Protein backbone atom coordinates (compact mmCIF):
# COMPACT_ATOMS: atom_id res chain seq x y z
CA UNK A 1 0.00 0.00 0.00
CA UNK A 2 2.83 2.37 0.85
CA UNK A 3 4.17 3.62 -2.43
CA UNK A 4 7.26 5.82 -2.45
CA UNK A 5 5.07 8.89 -2.71
CA UNK A 6 2.92 8.06 0.32
CA UNK A 7 6.02 7.08 2.31
CA UNK A 8 7.48 10.51 1.65
CA UNK A 9 4.23 12.17 2.60
CA UNK A 10 4.06 10.12 5.79
CA UNK A 11 7.54 11.26 6.74
CA UNK A 12 6.50 14.85 6.18
CA UNK A 13 3.44 14.36 8.37
CA UNK A 14 5.44 12.81 11.20
CA UNK A 15 8.26 15.34 11.11
CA UNK A 16 6.77 18.32 12.98
CA UNK A 17 5.78 16.29 16.05
CA UNK A 18 9.13 14.51 16.19
CA UNK A 19 11.19 17.66 15.67
CA UNK A 20 9.22 19.60 18.30
CA UNK A 21 9.65 16.85 20.89
CA UNK A 22 13.34 16.52 20.06
CA UNK A 23 13.83 20.24 20.65
CA UNK A 24 11.74 20.09 23.83
CA UNK A 25 13.92 17.28 25.14
CA UNK A 26 17.41 18.16 24.00
CA UNK A 27 17.71 21.93 24.41
CA UNK A 28 16.40 22.35 27.99
CA UNK A 29 18.10 19.17 29.19
CA UNK A 30 21.36 20.22 27.58
CA UNK A 31 21.11 23.63 29.20
CA UNK A 32 20.37 22.07 32.59
CA UNK A 33 23.43 19.88 32.22
CA UNK A 34 25.56 22.90 31.29
CA UNK A 35 24.29 25.07 34.15
CA UNK A 36 24.89 22.25 36.61
CA UNK A 37 28.62 22.78 36.15
CA UNK A 38 28.48 26.55 36.74
CA UNK A 39 28.64 28.75 39.79
CA UNK A 40 25.66 30.79 38.73
CA UNK A 41 23.44 32.71 41.12
CA UNK A 42 20.77 35.08 39.83
CA UNK A 43 21.50 37.47 42.72
CA UNK A 44 25.05 37.76 41.44
CA UNK A 45 25.02 36.96 37.73
CA UNK A 46 28.30 38.78 37.07
CA UNK A 47 30.21 36.28 39.21
CA UNK A 48 29.39 33.26 37.03
CA UNK A 49 32.27 30.79 36.80
CA UNK A 50 33.02 27.14 36.06
CA UNK A 51 32.26 24.96 39.07
CA UNK A 52 33.16 21.45 37.97
CA UNK A 53 31.42 18.90 40.17
CA UNK A 54 30.96 21.32 43.04
CA UNK A 55 27.18 21.69 42.61
CA UNK A 56 26.69 17.94 42.65
CA UNK A 57 28.93 17.55 45.68
CA UNK A 58 27.10 20.34 47.45
CA UNK A 59 23.71 18.85 46.67
CA UNK A 60 24.75 15.34 47.55
CA UNK A 61 26.30 16.20 50.91
CA UNK A 62 23.41 18.45 51.98
CA UNK A 63 21.38 16.64 54.65
CA UNK A 64 18.25 18.20 53.14
CA UNK A 65 18.93 16.23 49.96
CA UNK A 66 18.72 12.86 51.69
CA UNK A 67 15.71 13.96 53.67
CA UNK A 68 13.98 15.00 50.46
CA UNK A 69 14.85 11.70 48.75
CA UNK A 70 13.40 9.84 51.72
CA UNK A 71 10.28 12.02 51.68
CA UNK A 72 9.87 11.44 47.94
CA UNK A 73 10.01 7.68 48.53
CA UNK A 74 7.57 7.74 51.43
CA UNK A 75 5.20 9.98 49.49
CA UNK A 76 5.19 7.81 46.36
CA UNK A 77 4.98 4.47 48.17
CA UNK A 78 2.40 5.71 50.67
CA UNK A 79 0.09 7.04 47.98
CA UNK A 80 0.58 3.92 45.85
CA UNK A 81 -0.30 1.62 48.76
CA UNK A 82 -3.46 3.54 49.61
CA UNK A 83 -4.68 4.02 46.06
CA UNK A 84 -3.99 0.50 44.80
CA UNK A 85 -5.51 -1.28 47.82
CA UNK A 86 -8.37 1.20 48.10
CA UNK A 87 -8.88 1.16 44.35
CA UNK A 88 -9.24 -2.64 44.26
CA UNK A 89 -11.74 -2.56 47.10
CA UNK A 90 -13.84 0.25 45.68
CA UNK A 91 -13.75 -1.18 42.15
CA UNK A 92 -15.09 -4.50 43.43
CA UNK A 93 -17.77 -2.69 45.43
CA UNK A 94 -18.95 -0.61 42.46
CA UNK A 95 -18.94 -3.67 40.22
CA UNK A 96 -21.51 -5.37 42.49
CA UNK A 97 -25.16 -5.13 41.45
CA UNK A 98 -26.18 -1.82 43.04
CA UNK A 99 -28.79 0.86 42.52
CA UNK A 100 -27.54 4.06 40.89
CA UNK A 101 -24.22 2.67 39.69
CA UNK A 102 -23.75 5.53 37.23
CA UNK A 103 -24.04 8.19 39.91
CA UNK A 104 -21.77 6.28 42.30
CA UNK A 105 -19.17 6.14 39.54
CA UNK A 106 -19.41 9.88 38.93
CA UNK A 107 -19.08 10.68 42.64
CA UNK A 108 -16.04 8.42 43.02
CA UNK A 109 -14.24 9.74 39.93
CA UNK A 110 -14.76 13.43 40.76
CA UNK A 111 -11.65 14.16 42.88
CA UNK A 112 -9.47 13.40 39.86
CA UNK A 113 -10.79 16.49 38.09
CA UNK A 114 -10.02 18.83 40.98
CA UNK A 115 -6.87 20.80 40.23
CA UNK A 116 -4.03 20.19 42.73
CA UNK A 117 -4.03 23.64 44.42
CA UNK A 118 -7.79 23.47 44.98
CA UNK A 119 -7.62 19.91 46.32
CA UNK A 120 -4.85 20.87 48.73
CA UNK A 121 -6.57 24.05 49.93
CA UNK A 122 -9.90 22.28 50.44
CA UNK A 123 -8.22 19.66 52.61
CA UNK A 124 -6.04 22.18 54.42
CA UNK A 125 -8.85 24.57 55.35
CA UNK A 126 -12.16 22.72 55.21
CA UNK A 127 -11.14 19.27 56.42
CA UNK A 128 -7.88 19.32 58.39
CA UNK A 129 -7.75 22.83 59.83
CA UNK A 130 -7.11 22.54 63.60
CA UNK A 131 -9.89 24.97 64.56
CA UNK A 132 -12.39 25.14 61.68
CA UNK A 133 -11.90 21.83 59.84
CA UNK A 134 -14.32 18.89 59.81
CA UNK A 135 -11.78 16.64 61.56
CA UNK A 136 -11.53 19.20 64.36
CA UNK A 137 -15.34 19.31 64.59
CA UNK A 138 -15.41 15.52 64.90
CA UNK A 139 -12.68 15.56 67.54
CA UNK A 140 -14.51 18.22 69.54
CA UNK A 141 -17.76 16.26 69.27
CA UNK A 142 -16.04 13.33 71.00
CA UNK A 143 -14.42 15.67 73.50
CA UNK A 144 -10.89 15.17 72.13
CA UNK A 145 -8.15 17.66 71.39
CA UNK A 146 -8.13 18.51 67.62
CA UNK A 147 -4.94 17.53 65.78
CA UNK A 148 -2.88 20.16 64.00
CA UNK A 149 -2.28 17.88 61.02
CA UNK A 150 0.14 19.95 58.95
CA UNK A 151 2.30 20.87 61.92
CA UNK A 152 2.40 17.43 63.54
CA UNK A 153 2.15 15.05 60.57
CA UNK A 154 3.09 17.17 57.53
CA UNK A 155 4.12 14.39 55.17
CA UNK A 156 1.26 12.12 56.20
CA UNK A 157 -1.22 14.95 55.59
CA UNK A 158 0.12 15.48 52.09
CA UNK A 159 -0.07 11.73 51.42
CA UNK A 160 -3.75 11.84 52.40
CA UNK A 161 -4.48 14.69 49.99
CA UNK A 162 -2.60 13.15 47.10
CA UNK A 163 -4.12 9.73 47.74
CA UNK A 164 -7.58 11.31 47.62
CA UNK A 165 -6.71 12.84 44.24
CA UNK A 166 -5.39 9.59 42.75
CA UNK A 167 -7.79 7.07 44.28
CA UNK A 168 -10.35 7.75 41.49
CA UNK A 169 -7.78 7.08 38.79
CA UNK A 170 -6.81 3.72 40.29
CA UNK A 171 -10.46 2.82 40.90
CA UNK A 172 -11.55 3.71 37.37
CA UNK A 173 -8.79 1.72 35.68
CA UNK A 174 -9.19 -1.29 37.97
CA UNK A 175 -12.96 -1.15 37.46
CA UNK A 176 -12.47 -1.17 33.69
CA UNK A 177 -10.28 -4.26 34.05
CA UNK A 178 -12.74 -5.90 36.43
CA UNK A 179 -15.64 -5.44 34.06
CA UNK A 180 -13.85 -7.46 31.39
CA UNK A 181 -13.59 -10.44 33.77
CA UNK A 182 -15.40 -13.50 32.46
CA UNK A 183 -18.56 -13.98 34.53
CA UNK A 184 -18.97 -17.62 33.52
CA UNK A 185 -15.52 -18.50 34.79
CA UNK A 186 -16.45 -16.92 38.10
CA UNK A 187 -19.67 -18.93 38.27
CA UNK A 188 -17.84 -22.15 37.43
CA UNK A 189 -15.39 -21.51 40.24
CA UNK A 190 -18.25 -20.78 42.60
CA UNK A 191 -20.03 -24.00 41.65
CA UNK A 192 -16.83 -25.91 42.26
CA UNK A 193 -16.95 -24.61 45.79
CA UNK A 194 -14.38 -21.83 45.69
CA UNK A 195 -15.10 -19.27 48.40
CA UNK A 196 -15.05 -15.52 47.84
CA UNK A 197 -11.49 -15.20 49.18
CA UNK A 198 -9.97 -17.86 46.95
CA UNK A 199 -11.97 -16.58 43.98
CA UNK A 200 -10.46 -13.14 44.64
CA UNK A 201 -6.90 -14.47 44.98
CA UNK A 202 -6.93 -16.96 42.09
CA UNK A 203 -9.25 -15.29 39.58
CA UNK A 204 -9.78 -11.59 40.22
CA UNK A 205 -6.24 -10.57 41.19
CA UNK A 206 -4.42 -12.33 38.32
CA UNK A 207 -6.95 -10.87 35.90
CA UNK A 208 -6.27 -7.37 37.23
CA UNK A 209 -2.47 -7.78 37.34
CA UNK A 210 -1.90 -5.88 34.12
CA UNK A 211 -4.15 -3.01 35.15
CA UNK A 212 -2.50 -2.82 38.58
CA UNK A 213 0.89 -2.64 36.86
CA UNK A 214 -0.29 0.20 34.64
CA UNK A 215 -1.71 2.08 37.63
CA UNK A 216 1.58 1.79 39.54
CA UNK A 217 3.69 2.84 36.56
CA UNK A 218 1.65 5.87 35.57
CA UNK A 219 1.02 7.09 39.08
CA UNK A 220 4.72 6.83 39.96
CA UNK A 221 5.61 9.13 37.07
CA UNK A 222 3.09 11.73 38.26
CA UNK A 223 3.78 11.26 41.99
CA UNK A 224 7.51 11.95 41.58
CA UNK A 225 6.54 15.45 40.45
CA UNK A 226 4.16 16.39 43.29
CA UNK A 227 4.58 20.13 43.80
CA UNK A 228 1.47 22.31 44.14
CA UNK A 229 0.05 20.26 47.03
CA UNK A 230 3.20 20.95 49.05
CA UNK A 231 3.41 24.61 48.04
CA UNK A 232 -0.05 25.57 49.28
CA UNK A 233 -0.10 23.46 52.46
CA UNK A 234 3.21 23.15 54.31
CA UNK A 235 5.54 24.96 51.90
CA UNK A 236 7.93 22.05 52.47
CA UNK A 237 8.12 22.47 56.23
CA UNK A 238 8.40 22.37 59.12
CA UNK A 239 12.12 22.43 58.29
CA UNK A 240 12.39 20.01 55.41
CA UNK A 241 9.88 17.53 56.87
CA UNK A 242 7.60 17.61 53.81
CA UNK A 243 10.05 18.65 51.09
CA UNK A 244 10.36 16.19 48.23
CA UNK A 245 13.04 16.33 45.54
CA UNK A 246 10.87 18.42 43.21
CA UNK A 247 10.22 20.95 45.93
CA UNK A 248 13.88 21.04 47.00
CA UNK A 249 14.95 21.93 43.45
CA UNK A 250 12.22 24.55 43.25
CA UNK A 251 13.53 26.05 46.50
CA UNK A 252 17.09 26.19 45.17
CA UNK A 253 16.07 27.78 41.88
CA UNK A 254 13.34 30.18 42.88
CA UNK A 255 13.99 31.03 46.54
CA UNK A 256 17.80 30.85 46.67
CA UNK A 257 18.32 31.88 43.02
CA UNK A 258 20.97 29.16 42.86
CA UNK A 259 20.82 28.23 39.17
CA UNK A 260 23.85 25.91 39.29
CA UNK A 261 22.63 24.01 42.33
CA UNK A 262 19.08 23.66 41.03
CA UNK A 263 20.38 22.41 37.69
CA UNK A 264 22.50 19.77 39.43
CA UNK A 265 19.40 18.74 41.39
CA UNK A 266 17.47 18.59 38.13
CA UNK A 267 19.99 16.20 36.61
CA UNK A 268 19.80 14.03 39.73
CA UNK A 269 15.99 14.02 39.38
CA UNK A 270 16.28 12.88 35.76
CA UNK A 271 18.63 10.05 36.75
CA UNK A 272 16.29 8.97 39.55
CA UNK A 273 13.21 9.12 37.32
CA UNK A 274 15.01 6.96 34.78
CA UNK A 275 16.10 4.42 37.39
CA UNK A 276 12.51 4.19 38.55
CA UNK A 277 11.25 3.87 34.98
CA UNK A 278 13.75 1.14 34.06
CA UNK A 279 13.29 -0.71 37.34
CA UNK A 280 9.51 -0.62 37.03
CA UNK A 281 9.54 -1.62 33.37
CA UNK A 282 11.77 -4.61 34.20
CA UNK A 283 9.95 -5.65 37.33
CA UNK A 284 6.65 -5.61 35.56
CA UNK A 285 7.82 -6.25 32.00
CA UNK A 286 6.11 -9.60 31.82
CA UNK A 287 2.75 -7.94 32.36
CA UNK A 288 3.14 -5.46 29.51
CA UNK A 289 2.70 -7.62 26.40
Amino acid at each position, binding site marked *: MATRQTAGLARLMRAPAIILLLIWMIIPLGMTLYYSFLNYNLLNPGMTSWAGWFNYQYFYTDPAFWESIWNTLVLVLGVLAITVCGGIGIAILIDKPIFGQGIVRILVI*SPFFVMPPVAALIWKNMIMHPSYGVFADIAKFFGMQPVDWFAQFPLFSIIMIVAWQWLPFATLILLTALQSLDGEQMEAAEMDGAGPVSRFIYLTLPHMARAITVVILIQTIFLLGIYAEILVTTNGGPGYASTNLTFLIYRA*ARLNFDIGGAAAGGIIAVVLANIVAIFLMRAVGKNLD
Partner: protein
Amino acid sequence: MARAVSRNTKIGWTIAAWFVALLIFFPILYTIITSLKTEQEAISGFNLIPSFSLSSYETVQSQNNYWRPFTNSVVISVGSTVLALIVAIPAAWAMAFSPTKRTKDILMWMLSTKMMPAVAVLVPIYLIFLKTGLMDTRIGLVIILMLMNLPIVVWMLYTYFREIPGEILEAARMDGASLRDEILYVLTPMAIPGIASTLLLNIILAWNEAFWTIQLTTTNAAPLSAFIASFSSPQGLFWAKLSAASTMAIAPILILGWFSQKQLVRGLTFGAVK
Protein backbone atom coordinates in the same frame (compact mmCIF):
# COMPACT_ATOMS: atom_id res chain seq x y z
CA MET B 1 -23.77 -10.55 35.70
CA ALA B 2 -27.07 -11.95 34.64
CA ARG B 3 -27.52 -13.92 37.82
CA ALA B 4 -30.49 -13.23 39.98
CA VAL B 5 -29.44 -11.44 43.14
CA SER B 6 -31.68 -11.27 46.15
CA ARG B 7 -33.13 -7.87 46.76
CA ASN B 8 -31.65 -7.65 50.23
CA THR B 9 -28.12 -8.34 49.04
CA LYS B 10 -28.50 -5.68 46.40
CA ILE B 11 -29.74 -3.15 48.94
CA GLY B 12 -26.82 -4.04 51.21
CA TRP B 13 -24.23 -3.49 48.49
CA THR B 14 -26.00 -0.32 47.41
CA ILE B 15 -25.77 1.19 50.90
CA ALA B 16 -22.09 0.26 51.18
CA ALA B 17 -21.21 1.66 47.74
CA TRP B 18 -23.14 4.90 48.27
CA PHE B 19 -21.51 5.37 51.66
CA VAL B 20 -18.01 5.05 50.19
CA ALA B 21 -18.88 7.24 47.19
CA LEU B 22 -20.30 10.02 49.35
CA LEU B 23 -17.27 9.82 51.65
CA ILE B 24 -14.95 10.32 48.67
CA PHE B 25 -17.09 13.09 47.22
CA PHE B 26 -17.58 14.79 50.59
CA PRO B 27 -14.70 17.34 50.40
CA ILE B 28 -16.09 18.65 47.10
CA LEU B 29 -19.67 18.66 48.36
CA TYR B 30 -18.67 20.45 51.56
CA THR B 31 -16.78 23.06 49.54
CA ILE B 32 -19.86 23.77 47.43
CA ILE B 33 -22.01 23.99 50.58
CA THR B 34 -19.52 26.32 52.30
CA SER B 35 -19.38 28.57 49.25
CA LEU B 36 -23.08 29.26 49.82
CA LYS B 37 -22.57 30.26 53.46
CA THR B 38 -21.67 33.65 54.88
CA GLU B 39 -18.14 33.98 56.33
CA GLN B 40 -19.63 33.92 59.82
CA GLU B 41 -21.48 30.65 59.20
CA ALA B 42 -18.45 29.10 57.54
CA ILE B 43 -16.36 29.19 60.71
CA SER B 44 -19.07 28.38 63.22
CA GLY B 45 -18.83 24.60 63.27
CA PHE B 46 -20.03 21.72 61.14
CA ASN B 47 -23.21 22.55 59.29
CA LEU B 48 -24.54 21.04 56.06
CA ILE B 49 -27.34 23.55 55.45
CA PRO B 50 -26.06 26.89 54.18
CA SER B 51 -28.06 30.11 54.05
CA PHE B 52 -27.65 30.07 50.24
CA SER B 53 -25.91 33.42 50.25
CA LEU B 54 -24.17 34.31 47.01
CA SER B 55 -22.14 37.11 48.58
CA SER B 56 -18.84 35.12 48.49
CA TYR B 57 -19.17 34.68 44.75
CA GLU B 58 -19.71 38.42 44.35
CA THR B 59 -16.72 39.18 46.59
CA VAL B 60 -14.40 36.89 44.64
CA GLN B 61 -15.49 38.51 41.42
CA SER B 62 -15.25 42.11 42.60
CA GLN B 63 -12.11 41.85 44.77
CA ASN B 64 -10.03 39.42 42.79
CA ASN B 65 -11.35 39.95 39.29
CA TYR B 66 -12.14 36.26 38.83
CA TRP B 67 -12.79 36.54 35.11
CA ARG B 68 -9.20 37.27 34.22
CA PRO B 69 -7.77 33.95 35.50
CA PHE B 70 -10.85 32.20 34.16
CA THR B 71 -10.32 33.53 30.62
CA ASN B 72 -6.60 32.76 30.93
CA SER B 73 -7.45 29.16 31.84
CA VAL B 74 -9.77 28.83 28.87
CA VAL B 75 -7.31 30.38 26.42
CA ILE B 76 -4.33 28.39 27.69
CA SER B 77 -6.01 24.99 27.95
CA VAL B 78 -7.93 25.22 24.67
CA GLY B 79 -5.06 26.92 22.83
CA SER B 80 -2.40 24.41 23.87
CA THR B 81 -4.71 21.47 23.08
CA VAL B 82 -5.70 22.74 19.64
CA LEU B 83 -2.07 23.47 18.79
CA ALA B 84 -1.05 20.00 19.94
CA LEU B 85 -3.81 18.46 17.80
CA ILE B 86 -2.64 20.36 14.71
CA VAL B 87 0.83 18.88 15.09
CA ALA B 88 -0.28 15.45 16.35
CA ILE B 89 -3.07 14.55 13.91
CA PRO B 90 -0.80 14.27 10.84
CA ALA B 91 1.86 12.43 12.86
CA ALA B 92 -0.57 9.91 14.39
CA TRP B 93 -2.29 9.53 11.03
CA ALA B 94 0.98 8.71 9.26
CA MET B 95 2.04 6.27 11.97
CA ALA B 96 -1.32 4.51 11.99
CA PHE B 97 -1.89 4.26 8.23
CA SER B 98 1.61 3.91 6.82
CA PRO B 99 3.69 2.45 9.64
CA THR B 100 7.37 1.78 9.15
CA LYS B 101 9.72 -0.49 11.10
CA ARG B 102 10.61 2.39 13.36
CA THR B 103 7.07 3.51 14.20
CA LYS B 104 6.97 1.50 17.45
CA ASP B 105 10.34 2.92 18.52
CA ILE B 106 9.24 6.46 17.77
CA LEU B 107 6.09 5.99 19.83
CA MET B 108 8.04 4.56 22.75
CA TRP B 109 10.52 7.42 22.55
CA MET B 110 7.67 9.94 22.61
CA LEU B 111 6.31 8.23 25.70
CA SER B 112 9.74 8.43 27.34
CA THR B 113 9.79 12.21 26.98
CA LYS B 114 6.79 12.18 29.32
CA MET B 115 8.97 10.57 32.00
CA MET B 116 11.29 13.56 32.13
CA PRO B 117 10.52 15.35 35.41
CA ALA B 118 9.31 18.90 34.77
CA VAL B 119 11.50 20.23 37.54
CA ALA B 120 14.61 19.03 35.68
CA VAL B 121 14.07 21.68 33.02
CA LEU B 122 12.72 24.35 35.39
CA VAL B 123 15.99 26.31 35.36
CA PRO B 124 16.48 26.64 31.58
CA ILE B 125 12.79 27.23 30.83
CA TYR B 126 12.60 29.87 33.56
CA LEU B 127 15.69 31.65 32.24
CA ILE B 128 14.53 31.43 28.62
CA PHE B 129 11.17 32.90 29.64
CA LEU B 130 12.87 35.74 31.54
CA LYS B 131 15.15 36.59 28.63
CA THR B 132 12.63 36.35 25.80
CA GLY B 133 9.84 38.21 27.55
CA LEU B 134 7.59 35.13 27.53
CA MET B 135 7.32 35.32 31.32
CA ASP B 136 3.73 35.84 32.46
CA THR B 137 2.29 35.66 28.95
CA ARG B 138 -0.43 33.33 27.74
CA ILE B 139 1.48 32.43 24.60
CA GLY B 140 4.41 31.16 26.68
CA LEU B 141 2.19 28.83 28.69
CA VAL B 142 0.36 27.68 25.56
CA ILE B 143 3.71 26.60 24.07
CA ILE B 144 4.91 24.81 27.22
CA LEU B 145 1.65 22.96 27.88
CA MET B 146 1.37 22.04 24.22
CA LEU B 147 4.83 20.44 24.27
CA MET B 148 4.11 18.77 27.59
CA ASN B 149 0.93 17.08 26.40
CA LEU B 150 2.04 16.36 22.83
CA PRO B 151 3.18 12.76 23.57
CA ILE B 152 -0.18 11.89 25.16
CA VAL B 153 -2.06 13.48 22.26
CA VAL B 154 -0.08 11.55 19.65
CA TRP B 155 -0.52 8.29 21.55
CA MET B 156 -4.23 8.71 22.08
CA LEU B 157 -4.87 9.62 18.45
CA TYR B 158 -2.69 6.75 17.29
CA THR B 159 -4.68 4.17 19.28
CA TYR B 160 -7.93 5.59 17.90
CA PHE B 161 -6.76 5.80 14.28
CA ARG B 162 -5.37 2.28 14.36
CA GLU B 163 -8.85 0.97 15.03
CA ILE B 164 -10.17 2.34 11.73
CA PRO B 165 -10.24 -0.78 9.53
CA GLY B 166 -8.07 -0.65 6.41
CA GLU B 167 -10.63 -2.67 4.42
CA ILE B 168 -12.96 0.30 4.43
CA LEU B 169 -10.37 2.27 2.48
CA GLU B 170 -10.01 -0.53 -0.03
CA ALA B 171 -13.76 -0.76 -0.44
CA ALA B 172 -13.97 2.98 -1.02
CA ARG B 173 -11.22 2.75 -3.62
CA MET B 174 -13.00 -0.08 -5.41
CA ASP B 175 -16.02 2.15 -5.63
CA GLY B 176 -13.86 4.72 -7.37
CA ALA B 177 -13.23 7.17 -4.52
CA SER B 178 -10.34 9.57 -5.04
CA LEU B 179 -7.80 10.25 -2.29
CA ARG B 180 -9.67 13.44 -1.49
CA ASP B 181 -12.99 11.59 -1.20
CA GLU B 182 -11.33 8.95 0.95
CA ILE B 183 -10.08 11.47 3.45
CA LEU B 184 -13.15 13.67 3.39
CA TYR B 185 -15.98 11.13 3.39
CA VAL B 186 -14.49 7.92 4.78
CA LEU B 187 -11.65 8.59 7.19
CA THR B 188 -12.63 11.91 8.71
CA PRO B 189 -16.08 10.85 9.96
CA MET B 190 -14.50 7.76 11.53
CA ALA B 191 -11.68 9.74 13.09
CA ILE B 192 -13.77 12.52 14.61
CA PRO B 193 -14.90 10.69 17.77
CA GLY B 194 -11.27 9.84 18.60
CA ILE B 195 -10.15 13.40 17.99
CA ALA B 196 -13.00 14.73 20.12
CA SER B 197 -12.11 12.52 23.10
CA THR B 198 -8.45 13.46 22.79
CA LEU B 199 -9.42 17.12 22.76
CA LEU B 200 -11.59 16.74 25.84
CA LEU B 201 -9.06 14.85 27.94
CA ASN B 202 -6.24 17.23 27.08
CA ILE B 203 -8.25 20.31 27.92
CA ILE B 204 -8.81 18.72 31.34
CA LEU B 205 -5.11 17.96 31.80
CA ALA B 206 -4.06 21.46 30.71
CA TRP B 207 -6.73 23.14 32.87
CA ASN B 208 -5.48 21.32 35.97
CA GLU B 209 -1.75 21.72 35.30
CA ALA B 210 -0.21 23.42 38.32
CA PHE B 211 3.58 23.34 38.05
CA TRP B 212 4.38 25.45 35.02
CA THR B 213 1.38 27.72 35.50
CA ILE B 214 2.63 28.65 38.98
CA GLN B 215 6.29 28.97 37.91
CA LEU B 216 5.79 30.98 34.75
CA THR B 217 3.05 33.48 35.64
CA THR B 218 2.54 36.25 38.17
CA THR B 219 -0.65 38.18 37.50
CA ASN B 220 -1.38 38.93 33.85
CA ALA B 221 -1.40 35.41 32.44
CA ALA B 222 -2.12 33.49 35.65
CA PRO B 223 -4.78 30.82 35.02
CA LEU B 224 -7.06 29.49 37.76
CA SER B 225 -4.53 26.97 39.10
CA ALA B 226 -2.04 29.76 39.83
CA PHE B 227 -4.79 32.12 41.00
CA ILE B 228 -6.08 29.61 43.57
CA ALA B 229 -2.57 28.80 44.76
CA SER B 230 -2.24 32.46 45.76
CA PHE B 231 -5.09 31.89 48.23
CA SER B 232 -2.72 29.93 50.45
CA SER B 233 -1.35 33.18 51.85
CA PRO B 234 -2.91 34.34 55.13
CA GLN B 235 -4.85 37.29 53.72
CA GLY B 236 -6.71 34.85 51.49
CA LEU B 237 -7.99 32.77 54.38
CA PHE B 238 -11.68 33.36 54.23
CA TRP B 239 -13.47 30.06 54.14
CA ALA B 240 -16.58 31.00 52.17
CA LYS B 241 -14.60 33.07 49.70
CA LEU B 242 -12.02 30.32 49.21
CA SER B 243 -14.85 27.84 48.67
CA ALA B 244 -16.55 30.05 46.12
CA ALA B 245 -13.32 30.54 44.17
CA SER B 246 -12.60 26.80 44.34
CA THR B 247 -16.09 25.85 43.20
CA MET B 248 -15.87 28.17 40.22
CA ALA B 249 -12.42 26.84 39.33
CA ILE B 250 -13.40 23.18 39.34
CA ALA B 251 -17.04 23.24 38.20
CA PRO B 252 -16.48 23.51 34.41
CA ILE B 253 -13.85 20.80 34.34
CA LEU B 254 -15.78 18.53 36.70
CA ILE B 255 -18.69 18.56 34.29
CA LEU B 256 -16.44 18.00 31.27
CA GLY B 257 -14.73 15.21 33.21
CA TRP B 258 -17.98 13.37 33.92
CA PHE B 259 -18.54 13.16 30.17
CA SER B 260 -15.09 11.84 29.46
CA GLN B 261 -14.68 9.05 32.05
CA LYS B 262 -14.30 6.30 29.46
CA GLN B 263 -11.73 8.17 27.37
CA LEU B 264 -9.84 9.01 30.54
CA VAL B 265 -8.90 5.38 31.11
CA ARG B 266 -7.75 4.97 27.57
CA GLY B 267 -5.92 8.26 27.29
CA LEU B 268 -4.03 8.09 30.55
CA THR B 269 -2.95 4.48 30.14
CA PHE B 270 -1.76 5.08 26.57
CA GLY B 271 -4.22 2.50 25.32
CA ALA B 272 -2.87 -0.20 27.65
CA VAL B 273 -6.22 -0.59 29.43
CA LYS B 274 -9.47 -0.19 27.50
